[in-house]
């Protein structure tokens, strides 16, 4: 990679990041108003609060201000103090605390699940393609499709019943600072369905490459098969896989609510859904911003990885 190319990619990255700022700003505004359209507020409860009490609470959190003022205060607090506001539901923690606690957890098991899904999925797909139309292929296809077709939330109860109740091997839930025993089930539960689709994409991509002209040429030159695959076939095979992996990484982190619900891992997925249901506005917004920023960054990384894998693409 020449210095010119590095420079080009650098300026591309900076341009993309600059565009990301208004994107996230608009995201905040859109979510803010959507949230307020939803019926009920953070302090709607079974026991309707007397007016005076409600007024005190709203005054404390600034909810008595006009909406635009609330939005403005919210934004300035983020920019000036990097403060994402208080939680209305969890009175002794604020949004920064909640994210600082939950995000590393989600990131840990999400990243491990992502790695597991990618490695196993790609390996399975490559093996199936190389041994096309053999039992390995059929096995890999069946496994991949089955993993993808099962709704991933049924993995939770199945794993806990098997490993905790019947085999007594693993603790049924919790995080305990991320010890491996507590990680096994969340990672398996989260990775299976993505593993299935990665295997399928890898397989069809690999098959296509193996039938292409340049591989035929390489074969004609008498190169050993493993070298052909390793040196020539693998890189182009992974192109469509990579464009799929980007969104998967985001999904793995944001769609992990069922892992938190079943395994009590304490990640952000559950906080996210419950904050929407309890109208904990600041928590909902904070996590949305985090996820939005993550999406933007992951998309950028995917594009950069794409450029690295496919030298034909230039920015």
């Amino acid at each position, binding site marked *: 990679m020449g210095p010119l190319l590095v420079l080009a990619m650098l300026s591309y990255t900076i341009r993309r990041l600059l565009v990301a700022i208004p994107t996230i700003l608009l995201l905040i505004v859109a*979510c803010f108003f959507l949230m307020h359209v939803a019926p009920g507020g953070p302090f709607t409860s079974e026991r309707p609060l007397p007016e005076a009490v409600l007024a005190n609470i709203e005054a404390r959190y600034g909810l008595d201000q006009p909406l635009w003022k609330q939005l403005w205060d919210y934004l300035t607090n983020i920019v000036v103090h990097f403060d994402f506001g208080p939680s209305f539901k969890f009175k002794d923690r604020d949004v920064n605390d909640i994210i600082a606690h939950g995000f590393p957890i989600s990131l840990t098991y999400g990243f491990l699940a992502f790695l597991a899904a990618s490695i196993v999925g790609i390996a399975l797909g490559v093996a199936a393609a190389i041994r096309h139309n053999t039992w390995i292929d059929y096995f890999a296809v069946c496994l991949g499709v089955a993993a993808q077709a099962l709704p991933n*939330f*049924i993995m939770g109860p199945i794993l806990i019943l098997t490993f905790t109740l019947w085999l007594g091997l693993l603790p049924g839930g919790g995080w305990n600072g991320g010890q491996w025993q507590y990680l096994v089930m969340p990672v398996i539960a989260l990775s299976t369905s993505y593993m299935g689709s990665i295997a399928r994409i890898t397989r069809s991509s690999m098959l296509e490459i193996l039938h292409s002209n340049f591989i035929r040429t390489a074969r004609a030159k008498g190169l050993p098969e493993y070298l052909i695959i390793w040196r020539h076939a693998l890189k182009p095979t992974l192109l469509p896989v990579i464009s799929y992996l980007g969104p998967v990484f985001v999904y793995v982190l*944001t*769609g992990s609510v069922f892992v938190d619900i079943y395994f009590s891992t304490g990640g952000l997925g559950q906080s996210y859904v419950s904050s929407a249901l309890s109208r904990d506005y600041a928590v909902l917004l904070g996590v949305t911003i985090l996820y939005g920023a993550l999406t933007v960054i992951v998309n950028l990384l995917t594009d950069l990885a794409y450029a690295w894998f496919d030298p034909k693409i230039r920015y």
Partner: protein
Amino acid sequence: MRDARDRFLRNKAAIACMAVLFLIVVFVLVGPQFSQWSNEEIDWDALGDIQTMGAPSLESGHYFGTDELGRDLFARTIQATGTSLLVGLIGSAMALILGTAWGVIAGYVGGRTDNIMMRLVDILLAIPTTLVIILILIIAGRSFVALFVALGAVSWLTMARIVRAQTLALKNREFIEAARAGGVSETMIVFRHILPNLFGVVIVYASLLIPEMILSESFISFLGLGISEPYTSLGALIAQGAGTMAYGTLWQLLFPLFFYVAIILTMFFIGDGLRDALDPKDR
């Protein structure tokens, strides 16, 4: 088009899956004739002892057993399968219409319009789908329509991007230039030349969307935000069955799961078959 059909017909897996899907649709349409219970009727005798009285049996008329409330699972599975198929079809149809319209306009008009429209798509793509779905279902209440809107709302974005890219590629091709030089109006060009040429890509993507829609619906049901009783969906039945799988009523999970997996699998293979048939260059 003819080539494509031939290619599709030669794809054995896809044809087999079409047959299976056809059987499932027949089951949904004809099944109720054989059901001895309606989908909402409670079998009061079975209610107290689901484990034995609610087990699948020909005698009691509960071919698939009953759910937790003593309602016939055969009738409910039929109704749920219908719902899930509809969710898949309508959800992806919505994505198809909105996404195509958006993508064609952005791509064809180009310039600043394109920029603004696609920037909006980028922003919407950055909003977590979970949030969009939850908020729509909270705001709009829980009905079939809300469900379709929620699912359509999160799935048209990718479609719009694909269609735009295709439109951009098409609009500078010679035959379009020729039509324009021949005095054909812009609207006509879009309808006569652009849209027909998008057909293949759009159909392939839409068919791949159907199983995704059904999967998303099951996630919504898992969160308890699915459609209202007495109606149900496969996702809702599976979520309930998964909860009670350890309590000796495994049929509550297995019957809906069977239909669910069957639908998803056939959709996968049909989608793959369509892609191979309509988009040979892609392979």
